[in-house]
């Protein structure tokens, strides 16, 4: 069981979500984050005074997957989030010890398996 943490551009998300969902991986979380990296900051001019914004807004996408799905998901993110310019982001893959479904108390890999009733209409 692995967790993918991908820092991506906002505009890449919709396509990633659609493709992961189509692959049967609908469970994910996103959060608005600010970060700095090779892309650098930008300078804002407000009423003649300049301010440099060092941290740019990015989207953090988190998906927990079975080991066998990790490469598929990474490929999807690479395909959709890549522009070739600095600022495309990074993907981190982190081992996960265990998982618990809050509603039922189930543990382990079963938590990641799609529900029968969840199959997209």
């Amino acid at each position, binding site marked *: 069981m692995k967790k993918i943490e991908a820092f991506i551009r906002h505009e890449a998300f919709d396509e990633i979500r659609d493709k992961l969902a189509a692959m049967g991986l609908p469970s994910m979380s996103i959060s608005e984050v600010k970060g700095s990296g090779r892309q650098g900051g930008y300078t804002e001019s*407000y009423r003649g005074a300049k301010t440099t914004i060092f941290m740019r807004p990015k989207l953090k996408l988190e998906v927990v997957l079975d080991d066998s799905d990790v490469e598929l998901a990474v490929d999807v993110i690479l395909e959709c989030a890549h522009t070739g310019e600095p600022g495309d982001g990074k993907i981190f893959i982190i081992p996960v010890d265990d998982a618990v479904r809050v509603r039922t108390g189930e543990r382990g890999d079963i938590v990641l398996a799609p529900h029968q009733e969840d199959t997209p209409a």
Partner: protein
Amino acid sequence: MRQRSLHLGVLAALALLLGIPALAAAAADGPSPTDIAINSMWVVVAAILVLFMQAGFAMLEIGLSRMKNAGAVAGKIVINLAISFLMFWSIGFAIGFGDGNNFAGSAGWFLNNTDAAGDTNSLGLFDFGNALAAYNIPVEAVFFFQAVFVAVSLAIVFGTMLDRTKFIGYIIFGVVFTGVIYPIVAHWTWGGGWLAQNGFLDFAGSSIVHLQGALAAIAGTLILGPRIGKFRDGKPQAIPGHSIPLAILGVLILWLGWMGFNPGSFLGAVGYNFADIAINTNLSAAAGVIGATIGSLVMFRTLDVSQMGNGAIAGLVAITAPVAFVDPWAAVVIGFVVGLLVPALVVLVDKLKVDDPIGCIPVHGVAGVLGTLAVGLFATRERLDALGLSGSSAGIFNGGGGQQLWVQFYGVAATIAFTFTCSFALFAIIKYTVGLRVSEDDELAGLDISEHGMYGYPEQFIEVPGAFPESGLSGATQSTTATSSQ
């Protein structure tokens, strides 16, 4: 300025020519009820437009403040309007527009419409001052119009002081400013005081309303000091407002309100071409936007939207004094020049280490001075004569020589000396008694929570925005998996 028009005589002559004895008689006896009704209708509508300018100031100042202070700014505008009406009704109107000496009026307290001889005018016409006694309009309409003007002036003061001022400081200053300081200066010109007698012209208040507000604002910000973080190592920092769209909505509401502010300042409609005033006002505002846009591009290499809005207001403020006395081309020149200056002046104010979050000093102060002086440059003899202003001269560019410019100059100088001194003293008294500035902790937390106990935008600050006590939405989200069971 606001002199009686000749329309009654013209009307009477016309009526005689056409052989309508009834109308001729009515005109000879005094204002007809129809005239009074038409005048009242327009002036009250104009006053309502000016009242709406409070919404413009609210949106402009909220947009250019930070989110943690937005609610406090809203509250400040409401208290500003309340203080203005109550103080102007009780004492301000009597000092400003009542009969008295050349310095201040002293009749008509609480809008008591009784003249010096003890007679109450049955028509309700304005009859307790020499200066405006000739107007064919009820005193209540004049009061309403002038009361919303003082609220505009006070809104300017409060805008520059946002993000760091104690609410009680606003209240004490507002009471004295609207009750005494503003009315005295208004009396000099509009109440028939010494400036009016010397031919000083300020049609709708570039100096009386806007410059006075800016002077008090400068006094206030000097005593308060800049917001925390505005100057770091001596360099001005950007403290961006949280909503440019709201700020521009405010500018556009102010622009609309100005269609009452200037054209309504004839204090009448019959016999006045107030649409002409609306044209000059719009032309100057438009030229102000263009000027500020070019200025921003030259100064900052960017099209600063808040500066474009400031340019519109600067054009409006500057044309307010000369609007009835100058031709449209001059209105364009006046608006363009002050608009062009705005971005440079904003930088200059920053360089002087003065914190002026909404650009009030360039927009209301400098534009107010330049607009008042512009009368001495661009006024035309024809327009002055049409308004019966024989005591004033045409401007330098229209063959009138420097006489009017000199009168305008000392009128402005007197206004600056009086209003700045009084305001500075008053703010200093407030500072050393009840205190003018909030504590550092309160300022950092934001005035919304520290002064008012509630946020303007609570969901930005509470821990779990979107939490529903009854989990009302969880059922809805599960409806797609309604068949799932445990």
